[in-house]
């Protein structure tokens, strides 16, 4: 493979993603871990841009950086005694390591088999990919059912959080 100018942003974003992920695991400070998580998610968004999946990239930044990373950071800040923790591992680390290893192997095997041993250029992204995405989400043949199930799940979680957070009345 010859050098191409697109390698520079790719390796930058890949470094953000992997470095951020590593930072989450090895930081002794939970807030730093949360910020590293945000960096990792940002790197993922950059990779989506390089894959020309701009909508997914925008949604990634909006949902994960703008909402979930902020939520995690606030949760850490307001939870008592969570800030004092400095150990990076607890008793569950062997099983966690095992599960991550299994997930890694599965993903690698699936991806290598999907693309073949040599990476071939994939089909070009259709020009109007958002319309296509929207139609697929609203199409009974496409992803209508998973989409609706996911929205019902989110609604249930929303109602559940209200029920949990509501003050008990006598």
């Amino acid at each position, binding site marked *: 493979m010859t050098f191409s*100018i697109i390698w520079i942003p790719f390796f930058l974003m890949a470094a953000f993603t992997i470095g951020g992920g590593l930072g989450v695991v090895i930081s002794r400070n939970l*807030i*730093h871990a949360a*910020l590293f998580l*945000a960096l990792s998610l940002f790197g993922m968004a950059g990779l989506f841009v390089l894959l020309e999946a*701009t*909508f997914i*990239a*925008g*949604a990634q*930044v*909006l949902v994960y*950086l*703008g*909402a979930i*990373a*902020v939520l995690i*950071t*606030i949760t850490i*800040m*307001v939870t008592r005694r969570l800030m004092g923790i400095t150990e990076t591992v607890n008793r569950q680390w062997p099983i966690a390591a095992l599960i991550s290893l299994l997930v890694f192997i599965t993903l690698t095997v699936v991806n290598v088999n999907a693309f073949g041993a040599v990476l071939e250029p994939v089909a070009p992204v259709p020009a*109007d*990919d*958002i319309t296509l995405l929207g139609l697929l989400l609203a199409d009974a043949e496409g992803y209508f059912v998973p989409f609706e199930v996911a929205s019902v799940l989110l609604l249930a979680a929303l109602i559940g959080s209200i029920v949990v957070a509501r003050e008990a009345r006598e």
Partner: protein
Amino acid sequence: MELPPIVTTILAILTDVFTGINDLLMTLWVDTLGLSEQLAMSINTFIGAFALANFVLLNLILTIWFERKVSARVQDRFGPNRVGPWGILQTVADLGKLLTKEIIIPTNADIVPFFLAPLIGVLSVITIWAVVPFTPTAIGADLSVGALYFVAVSSLGLTAILMAGWSSNNKYSVLGAFRAVAMLVSYEVPLFLGLMIPVMLTGTMSMQAIVDSQLIAYFFVMPVAGLIFWTAMIAEVGRQPFDVLEAESEIVAGYNIEYSGFAFAIFYAAEWAHGFTICALMAVLYFAGWRGPFVETIPTLGIVYLGVKVLVIYFIQVWARFTVPRLRLDHIMNLCWKFLVPVMLVLLVVTIVIDKAAAALIPNYLAYLNPDLPYFQRLTGMLPRAGVLLFINVIVGAGALLAVSRQGRAERERIEALRLAEIEPAGPMAPIETGAD
């Protein structure tokens, strides 16, 4: 009359100034210096991005001066009038002062997030300008997800606020960050819903297409949506009446309280640039951006129209800033969750239903969206839709105001009744409860 070739070339460049400069530079890079076309395009993109980012920041020198002058007029003062003509260089002097000041780092501050926060904050504002269309041909990047890009990058500002508040190692800055995030996250809801209206009416998230389809500006078609969107935008910037983030006359700053010198200046720049940026976005999304007479034949006029619209909106924002009193945080939240969000949701659903029904009933309802049609045909083609949407807006807006006024009256009567019930049984000499027993 035959014009000399150099004059026609200059005229051609002036007609479409951004494309003209781009072509001129391309000839320079490719023909004169012999660079490859791809590299030349990369260089031009870089120059464009550099110029745009610097425009946003240098523009602050003028807008801060403008804001101080207008505020002085509102408060019956002179404002800056010593440095340069009409005090126009006052901001430059202030900048010099801030540059030379010491950056004080609080004890036990978390250095890396502490200095990263202002950078992310200013970045989240500057990058918005990539999707602001200046003329029919000039835009930083005409993304197919322009509107989503705008909300995505502006949500990075939240991260910056949290980082600043936490890394300062000061309980007041953490509390300030919480206050800011609570308010900003709440106001993102009406903001996104308000952003959905132009996207929905146009059928695309591309900013250039949104401007192109506004033969009649969306603000005059959907005034209720426009006003709610504008309110949410002002809250996102944290300006009066939503400035509890800073509230300089009561609590003095929030998340950025520990910042000094140039680190503070960057936060300050981000905030003021954001104040100007929302005016540009309002002009683009609801006031038809570069649209104006003859803009199709002379694209350069677009930047004049956009500039005038942005300045008028900016003036109104500054005017409101120095006349409207500050709201309390719980009132701000009530306004958002109990008024703006419900009204916007009702408006959105009603618009979807009636607009779709009208599209099925009225022939050529959406034909005006086609950019290839002649201008006047598109303008008249939009009229039926404008009428339908305006009707919806008037109904929903009037209904919302009626509901609020009825609720307000009921609340007043309830409090009045409570007060009477408290006073009446005890008579005029009721003992004063001190609560100190």
